[in-house]
Each structure stands twice: as C-alpha cells, then as structure tokens.
C-alpha cells in the first residue's frame, strides 16, 4: 500500500489513492490513528512514542500534522546535546556513559543514534545499541537508532524532527549521536543546543581539527581514549588552534581559563566563560556578553573516566546559553532553518508530482530535442505554469543558508 507524502491542504490529494488517514483532513487536524498516538504519548506510553517516531521518520501521511500537534502542546524543552566526531572515536560509549550519569540524578534520557545507510543496498546495520547495553532495560532510557538514508550531513533527513517528537514526550535530557563524520557533516547544529565533538589521539594531528567545520561548531571538545599515547598533545593542539581562531597569541594571557583551582582530574582546565575584554575584538559591536571558550576535556568512555566532568561542563554551557541569550538566538536560527527545510521538502514534492503529470516532462524533452528549448527555458516555463513568476524568484546568489552557519 503506497501513498504519496500528502499535505492535507493540497487540492490534488483528494484524487490520489492515499489511505483513509491521509488527505482531506484540514491542516493541523489529526487522523484518529495519529491522535491516538499523541494521546498515548501524553500518557507516557513508549510504544506510542516509538510509532510516532516511525511516522515522522518515514514521512507517512499526516506526519507534518503530527509534528504540528506535538509542537503546539509546548511540552518540549529538554536539553539537547549532540555528540559528533569521526568513526570509532567512541561516541556511542560516551553517550552511554553520559546517559548513565544522568540516570544517577534520576533524569530520564532520550537518545537518537544515527548510523550510515549503505549506498549500495539501501540497507543499514545499526550497531550503536551494542555500546549501550547496560541501558537496555532501564525504563528511564529510550534509545532509537536511525539509518542515514542517503543524507550526507551526519544525520538522517528527519532526525531533527524525530528529536522534536522525543522532546515532546518530555525527556529532560536528549542526546543525539551522529554518523561518524569527517569535517563538513554539520547538520547536528540543527538538532542540538550544545555540540560535543569527540576526537581520539588517532584522529590525526591538530591540523585536521583546524580545518573548517567540526572546529567551528564545537561547544565542548572531548579527547576520548585518553589513555592512548598522544592524548595530551592533541589537547594542546586543539587549544592552540582555538586560540588562533579567537585571535589570541598562543602562549599569551595565562588567566584565560578561569581559576586555576578548577582544573579537572585530567588536567583539563575548568571551562569558565571568559569575559570579553579586548576592545579590538571583531564582535565587539555585539552586546557585552560572556564569551564561551570551548573547553577541551579528556575522557575514557569505556571506564567512564572524565564523563562526570563532561556532564558538568555541558550543564555549565547550558547556563551560559540561557544567561547570554545565545540559546534563544540558536533556537531562532534553528527554527528559521526548519521553516526553510519544510518549504524545500514541500516544494520539491509538489514539483516532482507536477512533473509526473500528463507527460509534462516528456513534452519538455521533445522541445529540447527539436532545438526549441533548453533545460533552463523549460524550467522557467514550468515555474510559470506552477504560478511562480520566474522574474520574481531569482535564484539565491550563494547567500542561501548563510544564516544556518554559526
């Protein structure tokens, strides 16, 4: 039984062979099946949560209405932490240790772990749960594995929305773990308030970390597998790279890492937010707020060493996010991105469907074959047909998504 992803408000849906749950419901009104899921979630039913996630993950009929309903209930508000880093850095073990510590404080934790889909078979082997077995029967933990399904940003296309569903369920803590990433898979910024970048002494030299991407999105750096040779060197390299970025001269300004007494057991300085001082700072026109300098921590995910400090650091970061107004800024940015994503998806879907109608595409191809058009003229004509005046809709000149970048 197949159905198109339908927007209930779309006039064409009435004629498409969608199941009874799809179409014809006005926007925002749920089918009875989806309403039952929302009701089940409100009562804390985990099967309902699991099924609601599937609806969103598979973009089944009504999924946008489901999200709309869940978001309007206003229950969301958990702290969202994203864990990213190269393959084999120990992300899953770290997530597991992190969640275990949260559970000591009786906090319930929702986890989304993404693993890659094979580009050849379309299948996926999702193995993150292997490292989380000690959480397996804890009723305060909910783990969902997702396959990336061809998305290249380190998450699946619907991971952010799945996070929203889990958030709406009421978890005070949410963790999302990306696919093992390289340097530019940065979708995670759209899914979490705080980003932890996990590296290992084997991750390569500091130059890797200085390349664009991971370095710029990290709120906290973790050098995992800290017992391996090269860990301390990597910590130093990351710190000096951070200083270069913030325009500091390496080695200068010893008082930049907060009171010396706050040094952690691993020797990592405590992450005290810095007062912005230099008047020549490039961001000096912005309101005077404390700047967050990403701390670099040492951990051993498997034994749990250093993880307590990581949790504390993430909590401190959270306080900073709230106190500085950065949390609101990030969420606004994220919401803007979400609106763009939803529009992109919706427009793409409609364009595809229109193109599939009555050999519109075939006619265009014939005209091009006769030399009467080019792909560009045909696309413009098609836009006009859809009611978009091409002249009014210039393509963005590379500025698109600029707001998305931090």
């Amino acid at each position: 039984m197949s159905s198109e992803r339908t927007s209930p408000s779309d006039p064409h849906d009435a004629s498409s062979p969608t199941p009874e749950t799809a179409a014809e419901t006005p926007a925002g009104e749920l089918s009875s099946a989806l309403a039952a899921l929302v009701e089940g979630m409100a009562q804390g039913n985990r099967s309902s949560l699991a099924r609601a996630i599937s609806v969103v993950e598979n973009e089944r009929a009504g999924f946008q209405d489901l999200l709309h309903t869940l978001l309007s209930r206003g229950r969301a508000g958990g702290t969202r932490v994203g864990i990213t880093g190269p393959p084999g850095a120990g992300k899953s073990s770290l997530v597991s240790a992190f969640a275990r510590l949260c559970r000591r404080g009786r906090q319930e934790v929702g986890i989304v772990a993404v693993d890659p889909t094979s580009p050849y078979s379309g299948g996926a082997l999702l193995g993150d749960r292997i490292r989380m077995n000690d959480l397996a029967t804890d009723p305060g933990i909910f783990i969902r594995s997702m396959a990336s399904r061809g998305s290249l940003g380190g998450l699946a296309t619907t991971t952010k929305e799945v996070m929203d569903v889990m958030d709406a369920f009421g978890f005070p803590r949410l963790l999302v773990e990306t696919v093992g990433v390289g340097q530019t898979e940065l979708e995670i910024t759209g899914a979490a308030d705080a980003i932890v970048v996990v590296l290992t002494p084997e991750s390569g030299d500091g130059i890797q970390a200085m390349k664009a991407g991971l370095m710029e999105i990290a709120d906290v750096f973790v050098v995992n597998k800290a017992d391996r040779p090269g860990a301390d060197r990597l910590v130093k390299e990351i710190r000096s790279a951070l200083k270069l970025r913030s325009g500091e001269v390496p080695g200068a300004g010893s008082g930049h890492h907060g009171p010396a007494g706050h040094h952690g057991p691993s020797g990592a300085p405590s992450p005290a937010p810095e007062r912005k001082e230099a008047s020549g700072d490039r961001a000096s026109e912005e309101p005077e707020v404390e700047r967050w300098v990403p701390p670099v921590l040492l951990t051993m995910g498997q034994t749990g060493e250093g993880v307590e400090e990581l949790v504390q650091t993430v909590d401190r970061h959270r306080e900073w996010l709230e106190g500085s107004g950065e949390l609101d800024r990030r969420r606004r940015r994220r919401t803007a991105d979400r609106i763009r994503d939803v529009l992109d998806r919706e427009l793409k879907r409609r364009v595809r469907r229109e193109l599939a109608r009555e050999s519109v595409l075939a006619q265009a191809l014939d005209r091009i074959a006769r030399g009467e058009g080019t792909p560009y003229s045909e696309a413009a004509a098609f836009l006009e047909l859809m009611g978009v005046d091409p002249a009014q809709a210039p393509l963005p000149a590379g500025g698109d998504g600029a707001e998305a970048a931090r």
Partner: protein
Amino acid sequence: MSETDRKIRVLVAKPGLDGHDRGAKVIASVFRDAGFEVIYTGLHQTPEMIVSAAVQEDVDVVAMSVLSGAHMTLFPRVRELLDAEGADHVLLTGGGIIPEDDMKELEKKGVGRLFGPGTPTTEAVRYIREWFEENRQPEGV
C-alpha cells in the same frame, strides 16, 4: 525517501550466555545487503532487553539466533513479552540448532518460521519479505 519503499526494520538478537555470535553477525550483514535496516544489539541479550529494544525501535521483525539449546524457553518468552507490550504485530523468527519437532511446537506458540543450520541465507530474506508484504501495517499508524 518515499514511503512506498518503506524499509523493513529487523532486530537481530543474540540471547543467551554463549559467545557464538558469528551466525547473528552473518545474518545481520545479509539482511543489510538485502536492504533491511538491521538493529544489532550484541551478545548476551535477555528476553527483556530484546523486547525493550524491539519496542523502542518499532521493528517489524525480531530475528533471534539461538545455539544454546534454550530455544524452547527463549522463543516463547520473547513472544510472550512482545505480546504483553502490545507488539503482537511483530514477527518473531530466528535460527539455530533447533530440531524440527521443536520448530513445529514453537510455531503453535506464535513463533514464525525458524531456520536450521545449512539454510541458504536468501531463504530467510525471502521469508521476511513475503511476510512483510502480507502483514505490513496500514500506513498512517
């Protein structure tokens, strides 16, 4: 990704105290290559762990590898727990060293087809595909 090619989600589970997970790993890879989304949870799974994972992951199928001889306890127990959690729509299948009489016995208890040693892996894939086509849930739920 359109929902017309909705992925089949399978939990591959290895219960019991033995460390023989080769079969489970092989079948997990075969399922991945068949285009399934496979959740593999590693060794030493209790029935409770398996069912908890199956519910959270909202899988279509639970495939257990049982080589320890404990299949007459493990399969019915997992079936029971699945049903108790409202996951009675989930197919429970599996493989291992299981005598044919036991397979029949388990089938009566709501367990799907079980595969003995030497079964071509393609047979398990075909079985799951066919089951999925016949039993997949209506869209929207």
